[in-house]
């Protein structure tokens, strides 16, 4: 609710005077918020900047093969370069072998050409073992891959400071030799599919929490104080339990010989045990349970501010109960609904423990893959690129949301 501002029609000079009088207070407010701004910069802006940089940074080839790249530049048109480049390659690889950096190059090139890790490591050993050329012949004899134009195209391409490789891979694209873009081979296309499934699961969970949570929030506002407090406790209690514990509880409930199946069989409703765990159903059920409080709380806090007298007034003016509820009450709860849905949707996008434990192989979300690329494969470029894609999608949806609903409709409490 906005108040009608009294100075709406006053002269500009008065406005300026008021602003000047406010200045010390504003300055104090700014100074007070400095710690928060500094915190945000360190905890938020800097990591996201680092995320963006890591997603396009390409230091490996430049740092391991500096002389080779320089020699390659002298032969711009050669598909497979001549002896001078191979001599520099031998020199660079021998040095990298000593400094233990050859594996970094091998791993980087292996992303684009599987098998390159071994080829580079063997090349580094070869360069260290012999002191004399002819290097081109020696390299090609040891592994014909060194005579492959594709390998040299990859080295040339990665001589650049920045690479589009990770970002393209994160959306299932690749660079063609001619410089254009093309989708990757069908059996390597995974990330768009995973992103779509992440969005779908998040949307399903959001809608379910809304359908389940809205009546609860309404009951919460109508309940007498003591009952309301108990209800609130029941809603908050799960929030104080570890996510892992709640997820494991769902494993116990959902498994084939679990409580739900036992109950259904005991009641004679089913004769064959249902596959509930390791399914999309299990994932959505567990996530909905975990997310419910996040949807309920903003809705309830907005509902509390709506005077009950309004509904009575609507009834007394002749509106049937349903109509009074839908036309008077529900529209006023929209800010809470929007806020609750937005929180749940965005949090759901980042889930990974729950889908990993309760979901099947087709329920793994983007975060699962980010974690694998960070922890196991040490492919932080691709992990960052996936993070950037997720962030972009989240911002896009947030933007769309504000556009459709309006920023003023969003209220968190």
């Amino acid at each position, binding site marked *: 609710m906005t108040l009608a501002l009294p100075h709406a029609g006053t002269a500009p000079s008065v406005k300026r005077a008021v602003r000047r009088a406010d200045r010390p207070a504003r300055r104090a407010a700014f100074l007070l918020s400095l710690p928060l701004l500094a915190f945000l910069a360190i905890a938020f802006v800097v*990591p996201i900047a680092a995320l963006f940089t890591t997603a396009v940074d390409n230091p490996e080839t430049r740092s391991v093969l500096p002389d080779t790249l320089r020699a390659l530049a002298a032969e711009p048109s050669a598909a497979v370069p001549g002896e001078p480049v191979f001599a520099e390659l031998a020199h660079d690889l021998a040095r990298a072998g000593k400094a233990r950096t050859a594996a970094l190059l*091998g791993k980087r090139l292996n992303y684009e050409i599987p098998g390159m890790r*071994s080829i580079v490591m063997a090349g580094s050993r070869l360069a260290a073992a012999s002191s004399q050329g002819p290097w081109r012949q020696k390299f090609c004899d040891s592994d014909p891959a060194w005579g492959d134009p594709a390998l040299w195209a990859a080295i040339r391409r990665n001589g650049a400071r920045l690479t589009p490789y990770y970002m393209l891979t994160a959306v299932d694209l690749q660079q063609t030799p001619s410089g254009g873009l093309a989708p990757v081979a069908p059996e*390597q296309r*995974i990330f768009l599919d995973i992103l779509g499934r992440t969005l779908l699961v998040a949307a399903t969970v959001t809608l379910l929490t809304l359908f389940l949570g809205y009546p609860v929030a309404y009951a919460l506002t109508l309940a007498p104080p003591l009952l309301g407090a108990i209800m609130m406790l029941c809603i908050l209690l799960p929030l104080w339990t570890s996510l892992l514990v709640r997820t494991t509880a769902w494993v116990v409930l959902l498994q*084939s010989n679990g409580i739900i199946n036992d109950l259904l069989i005991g009641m004679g409703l089913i004769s064959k045990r249902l596959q509930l765990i390791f399914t999309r159903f299990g994932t959505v059920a567990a996530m909905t349970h975990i997310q419910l409080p996040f949807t309920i709380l903003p809705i309830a806090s907005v509902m509390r501010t709506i005077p009950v007298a309004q509904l009575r007034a609507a009834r007394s003016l002749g509106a049937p109960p349903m109509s009074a509820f839908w036309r008077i009450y529900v529209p006023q709860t929209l800010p809470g609904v929007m806020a609750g849905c937005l929180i749940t949707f965005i949090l759901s996008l980042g889930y990974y423990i729950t889908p990993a434990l309760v979901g099947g192989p087709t329920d793994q979300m983007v975060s699962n893959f980010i974690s694998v690329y960070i*922890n196991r494969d*040490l492919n932080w470029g691709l992990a960052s690129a996936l993070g950037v894609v997720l962030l972009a999608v989240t911002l896009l949806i947030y933007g769309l949301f504000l556009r459709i609903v309006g920023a003023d409709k969003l209220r968190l409490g």
Partner: protein
Amino acid sequence: MLVLNRNFFLSLIASTAVFSASAAVADPTLSIMSFGGAYQSAQRKAVFDAFTAKTGDKVVEQEYGGEIAKIKAMVDSGNTTLDVIDVDAPTLQQGCDEGIFETLDWSKIGSQSEWLPGTSSECGVGTVVYATVLAYDAAKTKDGPTKITDLFDTQKFPGKRGLWKNPATNLEFALMADGVAPADVYKVLETPAGVDRAFKKLDTIKKDIVWWEAGAQAPQVLASGEVAMTTAWNGRIFNANKEGRQFKIVWDHEILDSDLWVIPKGAKHVDASLAFIKFAVEPQTLADMTKFIPYGPVRTTAAAFVQPDIATSLPTSPQNMTGAITLNNAFWGDKGDEIRKRFTTWLAQ
């Protein structure tokens, strides 16, 4: 901007993920990280406590889940607080190649020739051999599977199968069940046709597979009756049996892999750490480990010290080795990324 990228991430992760008690200078306290659970508890009983009793050097334990990112972050931050780490074979290869681990002075440990092939390197000293095996619950299934082909025989053995959600080990099992000789498995997998063949074999049981991810899930899905049989790490099955289960292991065509001790780059007590590793891989110590967990000693000279009744339950015991292969970590280092992506698309089909 480039200055903040990796190093920033690293120090950020390092500061949150890895920390340990600061070491006392006089009597070195070794900070040792291993995989936790029953495995680390066996190490505590057979190795850590005995080492402290013998040398007076204290051991402070850390646990992790095998994430090399943690080790790399610690090393790159320039403050290596861990002294000795137990790593799996892929981690050893990656970390050794990338200079995350120290190269070791083998003259201070023992003769490298005593180690089984593939269980020692310039950076790592093998400690145990474990196996990925097929297992079933004898309490539920009387005439259970006896060979790897039974995993794919849904006629004779109906019911779901638990498999590790990773192409590694599954493609190998599929090819061996499809008639490829153990010695040729990786030769076949090197070719695209070989990978196709392995996936085609997995296709035959795809709808019956329950995928597990964490090692502890395998005995859990077996115990809950979720699956009729599952692949699992042999130590997990052994532990479930200690808790009263009657799981049986099918050793046929087991896939072996090893754990190794490494010293992270920049570690502060290298001499004491080497002394610890030397002690940890002495034949008697390795044999003592088998009393607590059935992982085979990697050192050939340790076999003589293992109690005969325990020896038969080790993956390295001769009668368990029919058709056994060792996981080829170099192959997975090269082709892992490509095959894992294909595996993910295959799962979603």
